[in-house]
């Protein structure tokens, strides 16, 4: 059984691979990938996650809708959610944080930034 179960919701396979690559440096991590918000929501309902990384601009259901739906469900309220997006404006950041995101990373991303945020939210020393 994995120590940390992390869900990556991102429509770009390149980004999914990059985020996954960074997170695999955490010992005992298990990565689950979803290509859009709906797929992500299905996976959140099916199993327990310790953390979610999500993009904002995605087909079918965007990341902001996913965050609000996850936060509406009492059983998932405590899951740390990190937004990874190209939207670098302050208002986008505030909107995501107001909906319940715990952190906000703008693209282009560096793997060490993802790792740093993940370790901080998972309380890994």
């Amino acid at each position: 059984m994995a120590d940390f179960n992390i869900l990556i919701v991102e429509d770009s396979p390149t980004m999914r691979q990059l985020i996954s690559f960074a997170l695999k440096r955490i010992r005992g991590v298990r990565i689950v990938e979803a290509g859009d918000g709906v797929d992500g929501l299905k996976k959140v309902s099916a199993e327990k996650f310790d953390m979610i990384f999500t993009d904002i601009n995605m087909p079918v259901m965007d990341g902001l809708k996913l965050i609000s739906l996850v936060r509406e469900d009492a059983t998932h309220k405590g899951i740390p959610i990190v937004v990874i997006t190209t939207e670098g404006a302050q208002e986008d950041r505030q909107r995501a944080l107001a909906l319940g995101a715990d952190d906000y990373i703008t693209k282009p991303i560096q793997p060490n930034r993802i790792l740093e945020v993940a370790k901080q939210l998972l309380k890994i020393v």
Partner: protein
Amino acid sequence: MIEEESGYRGKAEEFLQAFKKGAEFTHDLLRENERLRYRVLELENSMSGSSGGAGADQALITRIKELEQEKQDILDRIRKVEDENEDFANRYIEIEAENNNLANLYIASYQLHSTLDFKEVLQIIMEIVINLIGAEEFSLMLLDEKTGDLRAVACEGLEREDIPPIKLGSGLIGQTLQSGESYFAEDIETYKRDLLSPMVCVPLKIKDHVIGVLAIYKLLIQKEKFAQVDYELFTLLAGHAATAIFGARLYSDSERRLSTIQGFIDLLTK
């Protein structure tokens, strides 16, 4: 006789008294001698004692000097270890940065060669330019072998129709196609968007054969300047994107031909 006898007794008495005094004096002299000898011994002892203390002090001073030297050696070693630690910390940061860069390059390369579908290859190039380089407006132009013009095949933040075909050697993009050398605007902060003069123009080439150009017009708001890894990504794109595009085109051509041949065979055999 009696008088004579008393005279002798008196003299004996006197002699005895004198002898007793002499004995007492001798005793006194012996006592004084003993006292003086004792005093001499005391003085000798005190003198020898005082000369031993100076030796101990000297030994202590030597020991203190040794300890101070040891302390200095330890401080020097601590300083050396601290310097080494700082070097290691700096090296660690450098290696981490290098690791990040390599991760980006590895993933870009992996993704570019993960498919033989032409549209997917274009999509992956777009993703790399958006997500790993941080461009907001750019176009991917490929050389049309029939007309010899560069034509936009994919765009982000722009309309494809707005980008005019470019002739070999014409303008900045045409010159990049001709020379095969990348162009980077000197000051990207003051750059004004011009579809014929992008801030970055990277030729896509297989060895010396240029098959297209990546032209960047605007970066994401949070991307202020290019990092070292960006130039490496541009270099990687110049080679790997070109081979991926070329391979996908060849594959789709061969698939189409195969399908045509298969159609003929089906017609002949039915």
